[in-house]
């Protein structure tokens, strides 16, 4: 197996269709296939063992990704928001590498020993004009396709290994070949170093769906691009959706007639945001996707009908499904286990375990974290209801242990979010002399609303055990999120711990 097979099929089936658009420039599937071949020749000639990509979204991203697969060299996307010093530390772990990057970064990293640097435009130019690699790609399913540095919350980032079999299995398990109509277009604004940015390339190629790249997310630019390119599908992280909905505001003139499907994931979606988005885009199909780098992207989906059923229901248990991540994909199994590894029943909170062909669970230098039966411990905490809907409760490491009692931040956050004045909230554990850990909360109020600390403490006390009441509660203008929409809980924790 090799992801190149997906592109080869797309080039055969719809070679003249546009595959990727960036500004005024574009590549058809046949052009992308040809560029992958020439890019592979260039990579082979360099003698490098890794291809590192340090750039915003551009046409060089899909070309580099497929060219690496054709050449049989791991593709290593790097976060362009990192400092030069941080990038140097990562590059030292993937030697010898060919680095494709912007002119500015090329200059800043020119002195890195053993590193071959190719400016992005030169790479793309060569790939579009040179001869393809004569030999075909390897079909060894154990070849490493992508090495992805995960955003480590502590210590050095881990390099997750995604082999060809994981990447191809994910696509074959979730996408039908050429299922997109000729006029379909997906707007991709997640960064290219994120697993969702990588899987978007493969999914769209196999579906035959044109990708419109938006390198720097901005709500106004996103809205404008949807209309200019007649975008039909888009994927956003929760913070982006919140900004899009806010930018539209109550402006009756903003209409997005082409937009049929809006998928989101990458972090917890606050209930008020999704409810508002469904009102703003009444004709769009909403899909919530849950996945991890280590699982080659999506493992569970809350589909359009699930959204509608939940939104229309008066039953609180069904309505709550609007904040669930849905049910596992076919071919993916999910279990909730306790600390001793026992499988828990419906509604019980524990750690999420996942198994399937697309699940890698392997890191460079640490080997595979899969157990003997192939299960991967996600370190995400959650529960599953009787119908198989999965609910996320934060990271297993985020569990607050107060006086020997375990509590998940998610359950307290859910209660606070139900308060009419609360727009967003993060609950964390802070050091406490008496209890070991205490509950603290950072709350963002809705514009034009107000609330007192005691009022919100009372709100929690009425609805939960008193141990759950935040002993410390601060009002913040906004919560810290990374660009992939993930709440930076450790930042909240550090700030609130300092204040206590």
């Amino acid at each position, binding site marked *: 197996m090799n992801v190149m097979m997906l592109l080869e*099929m797309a080039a055969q089936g719809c070679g003249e269709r546009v595959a990727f658009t960036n500004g005024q420039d574009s590549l058809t599937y046949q052009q992308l296939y040809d560029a992958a071949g020439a890019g592979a020749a260039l990579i082979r000639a360099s003698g490098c063992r890794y291809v590192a990509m340090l750039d915003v979204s551009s046409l060089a991203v899909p070309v580099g990704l497929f060219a690496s697969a054709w050449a049989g060299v791991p593709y290593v996307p790097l976060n362009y928001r990192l400092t030069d010093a941080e990038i140097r530390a990562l590059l030292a772990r993937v030697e010898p590498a060919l680095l494709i990057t912007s002119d500015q970064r090329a200059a800043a990293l020119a002195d890195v020993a053993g590193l071959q640097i190719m400016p992005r435009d030169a790479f793309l130019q060569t790939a579009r004009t040179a001869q393809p690699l004569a030999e075909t790609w390897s079909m060894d399913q154990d070849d490493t396709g992508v090495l992805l540095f995960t955003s480590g919350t502590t210590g050095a980032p881990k390099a997750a290994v995604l082999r060809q079999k994981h990447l191809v299995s994910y696509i074959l398990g*979730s996408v039908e*070949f*050429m299922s997109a109509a000729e006029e379909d277009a997906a707007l991709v604004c997640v960064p290219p170093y994120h697993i969702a940015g990588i899987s978007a390339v493969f999914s769209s190629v196999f579906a035959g769906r044109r990708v419109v790249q938006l390198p720097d997310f901005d709500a106004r630019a996103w809205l404008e691009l949807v209309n200019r390119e007649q975008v039909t599908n888009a994927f956003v992280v929760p913070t982006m959706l919140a900004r899009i909905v806010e930018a539209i505001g109550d402006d009756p003139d903003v209409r997005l007639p082409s937009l049929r499907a809006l998928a989101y994931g990458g972090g917890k979606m606050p209930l008020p945001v999704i409810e508002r988005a469904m009102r703003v885009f009444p004709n769009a199909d909403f*899909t919530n996707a849950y996945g991890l780098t280590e699982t080659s992207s999506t493992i569970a989906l809350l589909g359009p009908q699930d959204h509608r059923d939940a939104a229309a229901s008066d039953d609180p248990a069904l309505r709550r499904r609007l904040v669930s991540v849905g049910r596992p994909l076919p071919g993916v199994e999910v279990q909730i286990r306790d600390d001793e590894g026992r499988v828990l029943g419906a509604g019980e909170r524990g750690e999420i375990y996942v198994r399937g*062909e697309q699940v890698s669970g392997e890191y460079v230098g640490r080997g595979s974290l899969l157990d003997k039966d192939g299960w991967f411990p996600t370190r995400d905490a959650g529960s599953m209801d009787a119908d198989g809907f999965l609910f996320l409760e934060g990271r297993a490491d985020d569990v607050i242990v107060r006086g020997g009692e375990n509590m998940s931040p998610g359950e307290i956050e859910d209660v606070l979010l139900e308060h009419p004045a609360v727009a967003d909230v993060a609950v964390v554990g802070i050091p406490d002399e008496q209890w070991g850990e205490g509950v603290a909360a950072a709350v963002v109020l809705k514009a034009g609303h107000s609330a007192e600390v005691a009022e919100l403490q009372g709100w929690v006390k009425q609805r939960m055990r008193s141990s759950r009441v935040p002993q410390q509660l601060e009002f913040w203008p906004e919560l810290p999120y990374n660009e992939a929409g993930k709440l930076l809980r450790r930042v909240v924790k550090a700030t609130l711990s300092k204040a206590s």
Partner: protein
Amino acid sequence: MAELKAGTRLRSAVCATEVMVIAAAGGELDLRCGGAPMIAMAQQPAGGEVDPGFAEGTLLGKRYVDEAGAVEILCTKPGNGSLALDGTKLILKENKPLPSSD
């Protein structure tokens, strides 16, 4: 007869069809295309004609299965022959498309 497992790629001996095995029950299975046993990708076809009884053709990107669910085959290159397992034609797999999630 060939040992079929997920990821195995095969080609037709009598038409342009190429496939990849997506799932297969263990053991040796008699997978044919156009009436002739399928061969490894590296193997050169010895020549021959598509059996008129197995000549409905394969479609690019479509998945084919048998009634018993022993195999699922993805067509990676179309051709004139039909796929068959133990002499019975494979059928197009009915799919329930998932919403796009990325």
